[in-house]
C-alpha cells in the first residue's frame, strides 16, 4: 500500500468481495505503511542474518585468539549480557536496522554460554537442554521477527543434538511428524494467527519460515541412512503419518474446488497411496511433497523453492540408497516415468476433450 488512493482502492475491492463495509483506522494503516518492517524485502532479511552470523564468527575468533575464553564466569556473564541486550533491544526498538546487531549478540550469547559450560566440563546434554530453554523463553517474551526465526531453528537444532547425545537418533522421526503437524496447523489457520496480535503479521511469517527450515533439516536426517539405524518400522510409521497428512491435504483441496465425485476422489487417493507407498522406506519423500503442496496451497514462494529442492534431493538419495541392481533401478525409474506420463495424459487429455465437448 503506497498512498491513500491505493489504500482506498484495496479497501473497496475487499469490501466488495466480503459484502460489507469495514471500519478502518486509516491513520493506523498509514503509520504502519511507513514503518520500516513493512518495507523489509528478502535482501534485507538475508543481509541481517548473514551479517549477524559473520560478525559473531569474527567475535568468537577474537575470543579464542585473544585467550579471553579461559574464564568460565566471564563467559557466563558475557553470555547473560548479550542475551539480555539482544532481547531488550528488540523489545524496546523493533527496528530492522538493529536486526544485524541483535542476531550477532544473540548468537554470541549461545556461543559464550557453550564455552563457559565446556570450561566447567558440564554434560553436553544439559547445554542442549538449556539452549532449548533459552530459545523457548526468547520465543515467549520477544516479539521480534528475527529472534523468533532464530529461536525456532535453535529449538529444532537442540532437539536433534539431544537425540544424538542420548544415542537415539530415531526420535527424529517423531520430531518430523510433530513439525509437519504444526506446519499444517499454522498454514491452515493463517487468518486466525494474523488476528492474534502477538503472532500476527511479520512474526507469523518468521514462524512459518523457521518451521519450514526445521522440517527440511529433520527430513534430511531421516533421509540419510548414515545417521539412521536401518530400523524399517520407524520409517514406515513416520511415512504413514506423512502420507495420511498428504491425503488429508489433497482431500481439503478437492473439497475447496468442489470435487464431489466420490469415484474420482477414491481414484486420486489410490494413486497417491500407491506412489507414496512405494517410497515409504524414505519418509523424506512424502515429507518434502507435503511441504511443497502446503507451500503452494498458500502461495508461500520460499517454501515452494525449498520443497522442490528437497523433493528432488530426497528422490535422488532414495534411488542411490536402494539396495538393488542397476538394472532393477533402471526398470523402476522407467516404469515410474511412464506412469507419470500416463497419468498426465489421462488427466489433461481427458479434461481437454471435456472442454472441447
Amino acid at each position: 500500500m503506497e498512498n491513500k488512493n491505493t489504500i482506498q482502492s484495496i479497501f473497496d475491492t475487499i469490501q466488495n468481495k466480503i459484502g460489507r463495509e469495514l471500519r478502518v483506522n486509516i491513520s493506523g494503516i498509514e503509520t504502519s505503511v511507513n514503518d520500516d518492517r513493512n518495507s523489509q524485502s528478502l535482501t534485507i532479511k538475508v543481509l541481517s542474518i548473514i551479517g549477524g552470523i559473520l560478525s559473531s564468527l569474527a567475535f568468537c575468533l577474537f575470543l579464542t585468539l585473544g585467550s579471553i575464553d579461559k574464564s568460565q564466569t566471564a563467559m557466563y556473564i558475557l553470555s547473560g549480557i548479550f542475551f539480555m541486550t539482544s532481547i531488550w533491544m528488540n523489545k524496546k526498538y523493533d527496528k530492522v536496522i538493529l536486526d544485524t546487531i541483535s542476531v550477532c549478540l544473540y548468537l554470541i550469547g549461545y556461543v559464550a554460554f557453550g564455552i563457559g559450560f565446556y570450561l566447567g566440563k558440564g554434560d553436553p546434554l544439559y547445554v542442549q537442554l538449556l539452549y532449548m530453554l533459552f530459545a523457548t523463553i526468547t520465543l515467549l517474551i520477544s516479539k521480534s521477527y528475527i529472534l523468533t526465526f532464530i529461536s525456532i531453528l535453535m529449538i529444532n537444532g537442540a532437539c536433534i543434538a539431544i537425540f544424538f547425545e542420548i544415542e537415539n537418533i530415531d526420535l527424529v522421526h517423531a520430531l518430523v511428524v510433530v513439525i509437519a503437524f504444526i506446519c499444517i496447523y499454522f498454514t491452515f489457520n493463517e487468518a486466525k494467527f494474523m488476528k492474534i496480535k502477538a503472532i500476527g503479521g511479520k512474526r507469523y511469517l518468521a514462524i512459518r519460515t523457521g518451521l519450514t527450515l526445521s522440517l527440511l533439516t529433520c527430513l534430511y536426517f531421516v533421509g540419510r541412512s548414515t545417521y539412521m539405524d536401518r530400523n524399517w518400522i520407524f520409517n514406515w510409521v513416520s511415512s504413514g503419518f506423512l502420507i495420511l497428512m498428504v491425503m488429508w491435504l489433497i482431500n481439503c483441496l478437492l473439497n475447496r474446488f468442489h470435487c464431489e465425485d466420490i469415484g474420482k476422489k477414491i481414484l486420486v487417493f489410490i494413486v497417491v497411496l500407491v506412489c507414496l507407498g512405494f517410497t515409504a522406506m524414505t519418509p523424506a519423500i512424502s515429507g518434502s511433497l507435503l511441504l511443497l503442496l502446503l507451500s503452494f496451497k498458500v502461495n508461500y514462494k520460499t517454501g515452494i523453492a525449498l520443497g522442490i529442492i528437497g523433493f528432488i534431493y530426497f528422490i535422488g538419495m532414495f534411488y542411490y540408497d536402494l539396495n538393488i541392481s542397476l538394472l532393477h533401478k533402471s526398470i523402476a525409474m522407467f516404469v515410474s516415468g511412464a506412469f507419470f506420463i500416463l497419468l498426465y495424459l489421462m488427466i489433461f487429455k481427458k479434461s481437454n476433450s471435456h472442454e472441447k465437448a
Partner: protein
Amino acid sequence: MKDIERNDLELISEHSDISEKELQQSLEDFIYPDQDSWAKFIRIVLLTLGVGFMAAGIVFFFAYNWDELDKFIKLGIVQGLVILVTILSLTLKIDLLYKNIILTATSLLVGVMFAVFGQVYQTGANAYDFFFAWTVFISLWVFISNFPPLWLLYLGLGNLTIYLYWEQVARNWDFIYLTAGLFVLNASILLICTWIQKQKKGEIPTYFTNTIAIAAAIWSVYSNLYWILDGRGTEAPVIIAATCLFYGLGLWYAIKEKSIFYMGLIPFSIIIIISGAIIKGIEDDAGFLLISVFIIASVSFVIWNLIQMQRRKNHGK
C-alpha cells in the same frame, strides 16, 4: 490498480474490524492459487517427473549394461535419444514452455553423450574438453530457444569449462587470473543482459540476472581477497580497476532503478573485501574484534539505506 498482496491483508487485519472468517476468505480469493494455477502446477510436476524418471531410467540402463555393450551401440543409443527428443520438442503440439523444458532435457542428454564418449575413449568424465564440447554443441538450442533456465545451464557450463581448463591445462596461470577472469566474464554478461532489458530487446527474468550477479559478486570478492591476503601488488591495479568499474556501474544502476537487490549485494561484497583488508592490516586478535564491529555497523548502514530506498520507491519519488 495494483494486485492485493499478503502485506496489504496483514495491515487490514491489524487496523480494521475484518473478522477471521472474512480474512480467510480474502486470503483464498486474492493470495492463494486458484483452480487453474493448481492445474498448471500439477501439469508441470507430472510432466517433469515423467520425463525426468524416464531419462534417469535410460541412464541407469546404460550404466548396468556398460561392459557388455559395444562402444558404437553405447554412443548410438544416446545419440539416437538426443535426436528423438529433439524431434519430439519440434513436432509435439504443446505449449512453448513445455517444448523448452524438453529441449533443456535434450541439452542434458548431450552431456550424457559426451560422458559416454569420455568413458569409451578413456578421456575421463571431468575432462575440460568434455564440458567444452557440451557447451559448444548446445549453443544453437540455447540461442534459438532463448529459454532462461537453458541459458543458466549454458553459462554454468561455460564457467565450469574455464575452471577445468585452468585446472587441467593452464596450471602455470596463477589462480588470481582465473578468479579475475571469471569475475569480468560474468559481470560483462550481466551488463549485456541489463542493456538488452533496458533497450527492450528482450525479456530477461529477474532470477536470471540475479543469479549472474551473485556469481560475478562471488568471483569479484574472491579475486580481491586473493590479492589483498596474498600481497599481490602486480595484479592488484587491474582487479581494482575492474571492481571499481563494475561495482560503480552496478551502484549507478541500483540508484537509478531503485534496485534493492544490487544495492544490497554490491555494498555487502565491499564489506567483505574491506574485512579482508582489516585482517591483513591488523594481524592480531584485535583485528577480529574490529571486523566484528565493522560488519555490524556497515551492514546496519546498508540496511538503513535499503529501507530509505524502499520507502522512496513506495512513495513514487
